[in-house]
């Protein structure tokens, strides 16, 4: 997940520039050419350079576009085609066309709707917990206090860990026999024995959400912190003079000032949590009895546990449509934000 997060920070700035109608650099280019018209010799040289200028970007972008088409677009198209077929990989027989039967099966399958409900629950909970924790820590760590630098650096640690060791840590912490979390749980009234953390449906869902959020929130916190630092200090001072209290300051100044950032983060969090595979797969595998089986887990289980590739590709198309909708939201927000910047 870290990857997308880093890219996102850059993109927030970059997209704003990309969408600006005015092309400053081009203006500068033309200017320098206009200033430099002395001899016919120079003129000929310039034309040559210009022609190369026009071809070069396409030649640079072409290998990348081809690469992504080969490894991403082509498989998706193949998957779309495959969802209308029956695929038997083991027997190496050519696929058979079966029309919409995979989709009919999907839409009439109560399991499918359960998977969609679990996906929605998981995604919404992670958005709420991770962005909420990000906001809380950003507001806290924006106030001056001793050791703030150390505290901020320590907070970034969960974000920097790879997902596999994160799950290893938590499987150990949640062990019903020796898990350290039991010490704290037993302090609660009514808990007299170590709970089976990952075998009780609602507890399993709670832990999957908590772990995914624990890993993700430092990134949201960092982005919100940057947004908080750009809120003009005079706004707070003016409101304080008018007698506003802490809560009013937060609600009427902080939140509106960082609203666009928060909206973007919510959409991003929905993309990241919708994509989440490794943590769920290693922690619960979708269990117990499907309580944490999101659509991504369902696709995996259908293809690689039940070897039903054609049905899995049909589920994949459903997942693709959902992720396209979220992405459309993201791009819409980005361009609105770009317009505000410009």
């Amino acid at each position, binding site marked *: 997940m870290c990857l997308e997060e880093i890219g996102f*920070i850059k993109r927030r700035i970059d997209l704003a*520039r990309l969408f600006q109608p005015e092309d400053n650099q081009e203006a500068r280019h033309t200017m320098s050419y206009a200033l430099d018209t002395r001899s016919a010799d120079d003129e000929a040289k310039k034309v040559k350079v210009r022609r190369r200028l026009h071809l070069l*970007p396409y030649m*640079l*972008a072409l290998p990348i576009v081809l690469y*992504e088409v080969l490894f991403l677009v082509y498989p998706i198209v193949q998957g779309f085609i495959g969802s209308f077929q029956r695929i038997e990989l083991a027997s190496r027989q050519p696929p058979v066309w079966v029309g919409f039967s995979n989709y009919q099966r999907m839409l009439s399958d109560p399991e499918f709707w359960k998977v969609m409900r679990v996906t929605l629950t998981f995604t919404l909970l992670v958005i709420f917990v991770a962005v909420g924790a990000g906001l809380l820590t950003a507001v*806290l760590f924006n106030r001056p206090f001793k050791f703030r630098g150390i505290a901020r650096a320590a907070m970034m640690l969960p974000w920097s860990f*790879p997902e596999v060791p994160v799950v290893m840590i938590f499987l150990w912490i949640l062990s019903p026999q020796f898990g350290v979390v*039991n010490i704290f749980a037993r302090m609660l009234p009514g808990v007299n024995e170590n709970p089976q953390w990952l075998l009780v449906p609602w507890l399993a869902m709670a832990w999957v959400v908590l772990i995914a959020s624990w890993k993700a929130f430092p990134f949201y916190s960092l982005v919100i912190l940057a947004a908080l630092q750009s809120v003009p200090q005079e706004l707070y001072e003016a409101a304080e003079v008018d007698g506003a209290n802490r809560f009013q300051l937060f609600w009427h100044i902080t939140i509106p000032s960082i609203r666009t950032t928060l909206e973007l983060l919510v959409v991003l969090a929905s993309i990241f949590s919708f994509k989440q595979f490794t943590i769920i797969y290693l922690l619960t595998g979708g269990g117990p009895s499907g309580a944490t089986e999101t659509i991504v887990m369902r696709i995996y289980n259908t293809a690689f546990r039940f070897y039903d590739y054609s049905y899995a590709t049909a589920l994949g198309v459903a997942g693709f449509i959902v992720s396209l909708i979220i992405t459309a939201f993201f791009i819409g927000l980005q361009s609105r934000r770009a317009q505000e910047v410009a």
Partner: protein
Amino acid sequence: MNNALSQRAHQKSPVALVRHVVSRVLLYATIALVSIITIFPIYWMLVSTFQPSKYTLHYPPPLIPQEIIFNQFSDLFGNYPIARWLTNSLLIATMSMLLCLSLTVLGAYALSNLRWKGRSLFGMFLLVTQMLPEILIVIPLYIIYQRLNLTDRLSTLSLINVAFSLPICIWILKGVFDTVPGEVLDAAVVDGCTEWTALWRIVLPLAAPGLVAVAVVSFFSAWNEFLFAVIMLSSAELQPASVGLTTLKATGFTPVEQYMAAGLVFSILPVVFYLMMQRYIISGLTAGAVKG
């Protein structure tokens, strides 16, 4: 806001002073609580690594380590093929990094310093490709590769990893290339440099830290990657560490200190480099696009 508060506190009103002290205490208590909750899982990983399992395999385990040992690392490397796992990860990550780095330079230059029709379309294309869940690609890709007999190769895995890290890397390097002043490029072109040679002579030397950042991101995204590795590689000799580690079980056969040591060995490099990167990203954020 806080300056105003503390100034008022100094103006010798006892009520304000008490309120100031209370709010400070509350602030520090909240910060301490939040930090402890955030750090505790990592603290527990370290405790479980360096403390003999006779303490941790006991309920309730002591929260403060009672004894420190170091032989778990040699035991780990002796009992499990972790050296081979790490070598495989290293190979996959290095191949991914080299390929990603060379393609990223081209893409970032086109996206940042050159003006052309279709540039924002190109940017949008990169954006959409990285939003797609990996699972959607992996099934058709697995079917295609099965038919072509391309599964179970480290190089295949690197190629797939690059497809997913390339868009993000291009966006990162584009941000760095943007800070190269347009005037410098214009001057180079007027002096007879082509835009192609300007990339190598002017833009790249100025963007050295950005190249390091891209190398780190592409290397460790392949190092950390799990889904493609678990599906595309079936033979045990080719397993990278991200897959190999999941065969260890804390409450089964692997002694706890070795289990957690394995996690630590695997995480140490990505954690160090991502944290280094993060400082770089923040300074990039706060400095913005400073033009020379």
